[in-house]
């Protein structure tokens, strides 16, 4: 692109060093470097979680003991849940891709508070270490499940306080990121970048940031209360002291339900970026998608107690929350329809990122639609706390968010690292992932409907066949992921240099060189059209420049 030539002279952010050695990374306040920091640390934590998931599946091969005993299994799913939720999927897309691309997409040089941004990363690392440290301490790792339900979390003798503290610190990190993004969006948009000219990824991050800011403190206080109750025996939740465990569940889910939208909204934003680029046409219903992000963020607050349908709350509550849960599904549906409509009469190039997006639409729809089964009282009371729920949330979190993480990684890889990956290999990984994934998790729907409860170390023999299929699925899935990650890592070193705009995208990040210069823009751009205006490119039939 035109200003690409000009910018060639600029030092890119990987060359531009403010400090020596490792300090060039861990002391840098450049939002791009912080994004990479998150990526690296997240992948590290993440593999711990994956290994635990893999081991859990091995244990499920036979009823009774296969490889570990009950206590170990209980700590496995707890740590697996904590790591995947708090260390991987919640910070996931905002911290990595949000940090890297939000400022670029709105034409800013950095986020509003760069130093706070770096602090968030440090808090993230500290929180993560806290969460994992319990593995190595006297008393053994936490075994409460990632939901920390009282009174078990007050009674168990394992190390609960440390991981709780970790979760609290991670919450702080998440709040600071959210606060930073909101301020950035309000204050640092380039001239002409009105709210309705912002890319939908930015809209999604903006909505997410609001949830981060207003929901996270609620779980923060809940965690603090459990800690002081455990440490000092202040009467708060413990029924022995007159407390009500249901109130803990309310407070916990007041955060943790909106948190699932923290996980999915940014992913939806990425989808809204990738589809127009590869269909080379403007998105269908820009405003509807933008507003549905806000709607999800808002209504997302009103449904938390659908996690408590069998907990003994009032019948009124059950009805109200069931109704509201059904309504929250609608804005997600609207998005799905709009995405599919965006493919209509496009000029579609089927590249790796788009394949992942298609996979996402299919898997997320299954996950979301089974969410309706869970939102419905009659069926939820049967399948709650069974493998049906486990299947649901792996479909939405893994099939939804994590698959989009892969898509985003492929989509923005050339821009972030200035290298191209091997397209063929990237595409080859997808059938493995798709088949493995469905074998692994679809079986869990059947298991759950047949009454196999979750968090079970042992199970009745009649469930074994399905468990075996599921475990084999996990091996196929991991093979697919190994191909995918292997390809990316190899390309990092050996890939061909990437062009500034390999896909023919029109949002701002594609108008600067790959990798981006340290200051992003030599001159702050002036924006005079919407985010997905392909009319210029469509002028010449072969769009690539």
């Amino acid at each position, binding site marked *: 692109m035109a200003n690409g030539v000009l910018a060639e002279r600029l030092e890119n952010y990987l060359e531009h060093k403010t400090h020596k050695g490792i300090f060039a990374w861990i002391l840098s306040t450049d939002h791009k470097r912080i994004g990479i920091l998150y990526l690296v640390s997240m992948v590290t934590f993440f593999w711990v979680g994956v290994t635990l998931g893999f081991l859990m599946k091995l244990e499920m091969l036979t009823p009774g003991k296969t490889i570990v005993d009950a206590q170990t299994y209980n700590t496995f799913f707890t740590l697996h849940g904590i790591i995947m939720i708090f260390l991987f999927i919640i910070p996931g897309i905002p911290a990595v891709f949000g940090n890297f691309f939000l400022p670029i997409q709105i034409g800013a040089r950095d986020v509003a508070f760069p130093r706070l941004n770096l602090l968030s990363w440090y808090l993230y690392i500290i929180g993560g270490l806290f969460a994992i440290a319990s593995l190595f301490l006297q008393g053994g790792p936490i075994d409460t499940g990632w939901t920390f339900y009282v009174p078990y979390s007050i009674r168990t003798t394992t190390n609960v306080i440390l991981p709780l503290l970790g979760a609290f610190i991670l919450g702080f990190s998440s709040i600071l990121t959210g606060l930073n993004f909101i301020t950035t969006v309000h*204050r640092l948009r380039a001239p002409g970048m009105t709210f309705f000219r912002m890319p939908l990824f930015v809209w999604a991050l903006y909505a997410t940031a609001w949830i981060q800011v207003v929901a996270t403190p609620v779980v923060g206080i809940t965690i*603090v209360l459990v800690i002081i109750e455990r440490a000092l025996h202040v009467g708060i939740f413990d029924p022995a*002291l007159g407390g009500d465990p249901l109130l803990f569940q309310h407070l916990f889910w007041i955060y943790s339900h909106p948190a699932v939208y923290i996980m999915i909204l940014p992913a939806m934003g990425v989808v809204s970026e990738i589809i127009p680029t590869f269909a080379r046409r403007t998105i269908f219903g820009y405003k509807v998608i933008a507003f549905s992000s806000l709607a999800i963020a808002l209504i997302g607050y009103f449904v938390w107690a659908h996690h408590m349908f069998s907990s003994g709350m009032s019948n009124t509550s059950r009805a109200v929350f069931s109704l509201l849960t059904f309504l929250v599904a609608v804005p997600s549906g609207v998005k799905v329809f709009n995405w599919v409509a965006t493919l209509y009469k496009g000029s579609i190039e089927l590249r790796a990122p788009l394949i992942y997006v298609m996979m996402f639409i299919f898997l997320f729809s299954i996950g979301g639609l089974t969410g309706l089964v869970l939102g419905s009282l009659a069926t939820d009371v049967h399948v709650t706390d069974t493998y049906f729920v486990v299947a649901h949330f792996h479909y939405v979190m893994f099939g939804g968010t994590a698959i989009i993480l892969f898509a985003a990684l492929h989509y923005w890889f050339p821009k972030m690292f200035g290298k191209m990956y091997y397209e063929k290999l990237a595409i080859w990984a997808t059938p493995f992932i798709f088949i493995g994934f469905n074998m692994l998790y679809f079986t869990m729907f059947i298991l759950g409907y047949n009454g196999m409860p979750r968090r079970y170390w042992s199970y009745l023999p009649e469930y074994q066949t399905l468990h075996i299929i599921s475990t084999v699925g996990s091996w196929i899935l991991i093979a697919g992921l190994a191909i995918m990650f292997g390809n990316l890592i190899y390309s990092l070193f050996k890939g061909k240099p990437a062009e500034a705009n390999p896909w023919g995208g029109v949002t701002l990040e594609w108008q600067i060189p790959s990798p981006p210069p340290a200051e992003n823009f030599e001159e702050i751009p002036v924006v005079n059209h919407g985010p997905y205006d392909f009319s210029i490119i469509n002028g010449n039939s072969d769009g690539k420049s």
Partner: protein
Amino acid sequence: MENPEISTPIAISESEKTEQARHLSIPHQHKDAIGAKIGMWLFLFTELLLFGGLFLLYMAYRLQYTKDFVVAASELNLVLGTLNTIILLTSSLTMALSIAAIQRGKKKLSVAMLLATIGFALAFLVIKYFEWTAKFHHGIAPNSPELLSKPNGEIIFYGMYYSMTGLHALHVIIGMIILLFMLVFLLRGSISKNDYIKLENSGLYWHLVDLIWIFLFPLFYLLH
């Protein structure tokens, strides 16, 4: 989908471009006071929601244990509570005045008011300390046999009392530390008539602490 609206590129002239740029561009090295304030307010919302969770618990338990709550509340010291309310309200005034003074460039007045605020904060903490230790003296401390022998509702009342006023006191302490830093900045001149956003933001934090107390006070001390 029959009537596709095809968007046309809006051509923009070179002069228009620079015109826009001059109007809207915010060079990023410059300090952005409004941005900082937005950040601060967002942070205050998190504090609001943090205490919100506690108030929610309070509401639920109060409904469940109305009688016990009234009994337990009557044992709190209303005089000290009222005194502390007045102290905090006054500290809010001095805080606001300190900002008002620096806005007008009156550094000395500003410093004096800030000192007063810190003084009031300290007074609040001292009173709180006496209140708590008096309670402890009567054996009413978390997990003490005296407290555990009381009805469940009273145990919970004190659980809420200690955690809510405790967390609030923690905020007073943090606020005090922040204000001490501001004092140093003020004396050094890095807070001045032209750049006082730091002081303003600290003020916002301080007022929030006051705000929360405004609700804690009737909920714990005025139950009859």
